[in-house]
């Protein structure tokens, strides 16, 4: 859907050239949520601004649905931008306009008549959950509500793509989750392609299908989120993945639980996405006559399933323990019995 070829943006400074985006090539599929992660200054914002040419590329090519964006003249570019929604870290709402008027702004730009505009705005207000706040001014809204207005505004002209530049970075964790949920539901409902820029791994983990890791203007790693999580190759990627599982597993603390006792077994469960259900542990406890004692670990939910490691103690008859381990295995989770070395 979006094809980016050898895209570069260089800023010419007095004494040096900044290669903000350096020879980036990517293919982004229709309907996917594509994440770009990188540290501050990696070139993420410049990259996303190149996609609607708020920044003019130094070289390279962007095609959206077989149409070259980089070749478009001024007027055609303006029309095309109406089909590329964008949301921002600091929301960038017009404070002199109400919620309703802010959402209607892109429709005014597109030249829609008042009646159709009203229908569209009402629909969008419903979609982002701001019913009753139509006549509020941005200054009367919370951060999360402001971003909802931003999202509604970005969706007004039925865009093909939504660009998000650090859309949740100014929000508290709870509000961040709400906004991310909203983005996922929009992605599903409208089959909207979303390109999302962030420096926070949990944002990628929570909603993205694929991820690109940027460093010094280059994409150093790209792939399915789960694959990148399980098997990060680059050093930067590894550091980002580690943001998510700060609890280093501590084998020392497991020692006390590992005994000769036949009716107790410490096992390591390795979730690698796929079919494993969130309720697996409670299912085991319900279906088998065992106690499941969770010792340590961390599990992350991604769009492609659960990922992470869990250490549990199974307490029950030997045969039942075996049966439950088989059940877990069949659910697509790797099971490994932990013994004292």
């Amino acid at each position, binding site marked *: 859907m979006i094809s980016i070829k050898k895209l570069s943006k260089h800023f010419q400074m007095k004494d040096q050239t900044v290669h903000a985006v350096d020879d980036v090539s990517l293919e982004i599929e229709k309907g996917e949520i594509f994440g770009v992660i990188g540290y501050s200054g990696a070139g993420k914002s410049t990259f996303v601004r190149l996609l*609607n040419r708020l920044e003019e590329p130094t070289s390279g090519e962007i095609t959206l649905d077989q149409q070259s964006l980089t070749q478009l003249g001024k007027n055609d570019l303006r029309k095309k*931008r109406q089909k590329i929604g964008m949301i921002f870290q*600091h929301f960038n709402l*017009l404070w*002199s306009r109400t919620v309703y008027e802010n959402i209607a702004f892109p429709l005014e*730009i*597109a030249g829609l008549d008042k009646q159709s505009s009203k229908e569209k705005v009402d629909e969008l207000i419903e979609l982002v959950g701001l019913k009753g706040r139509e006549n509020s001014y941005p200054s009367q809204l919370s951060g999360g509500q402001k971003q909802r207005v931003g999202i509604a*505004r970005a969706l007004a002209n039925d865009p093909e793509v939504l660009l998000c530049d650090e859309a949740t970075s100014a929000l508290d964790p709870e509000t961040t989750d709400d906004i991310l949920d909203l983005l996922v539901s929009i992605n599903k409902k409208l089959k909207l392609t979303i390109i999302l820029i962030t420096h926070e791994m949990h944002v990628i983990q929570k909603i993205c299908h694929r991820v690109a890791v940027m460093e010094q203007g280059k994409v150093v790693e790209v792939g399915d989120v789960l694959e990148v999580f399980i098997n990060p190759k680059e050093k930067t990627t590894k550091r980002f993945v580690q943001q998510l599982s700060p609890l280093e597993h501590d084998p020392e603390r497991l020692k006390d639980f590992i005994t000769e006792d036949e009716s107790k077994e410490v096992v390591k469960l390795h979730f690698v996405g796929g079919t494993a259900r969130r309720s697996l542990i409670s299912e085991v406890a319900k279906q088998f006559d065992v106690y499941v004692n969770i010792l340590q670990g961390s599990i992350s939910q991604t769009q492609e399933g659960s990922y992470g490691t869990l250490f549990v103690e199974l307490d029950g008859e030997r045969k039942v323990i075996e049966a439950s381990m088989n059940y877990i295995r069949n659910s697509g989770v790797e099971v490994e019995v932990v013994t004292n070395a």
Partner: protein
Amino acid sequence: MLEELFPNVIMENLWTATYETLYMTVISVIGTFILGIILGLLLYLTDRGNLWSNRVINGITATVVNVFRAIPFIILILLLIPFTDFLMDTIRGPKAALPALIIGSAPFYARLVEIALKEVDKGVIEAAKSMGAKTHTIIFKVLLQESKPALVGGLTVTAIALIGYTAIAGVIGAGGLGDLAYMHGFQRRNNDVVFACTVFIVAIVFIFQWAGDFVSKRIDKR
């Protein structure tokens, strides 16, 4: 009682002078507003990194604005006499004061407009661009709307300065309260006339200040 305190004040003259002062102020505020907005927009838009970024035009505009701001108003009136004569066909009366009033205060207001526009969040302009807005949409629906309270505040300050200018213009025959205070008051040693004119001018200033603050507050939704 009043007649005892103000033996030389002729009410009819005072009202006429008040009317003339208001006439000069209102018309020149309108003219200053239009010319100031145009110059202020030009200063802002041609500045580096902005929509019409252009060093030459920016430099010329800034120079014109600075030069006219540097000329003392009383001298500006004298310099503009031929221009006024050509434009208004007279160099006396309230009408003749208008060109000097507008040309004298528009550069001042232009700078205030420029400052107001600079305060508009760059991110909001960027957002409008990302929606495919045309330049005139950005100017009229984003820049001027988002800076409205500051534009009104600046206009209030300018209007009050203009009331002062009308009094100066009065001294060389523009009419209005300044004229009355100087010709009938000061020249004829009628201190009561000077005092009455002062009270009226202060009242006008207060009304403008109050109205400006009121409007500015009403439209400020930040």
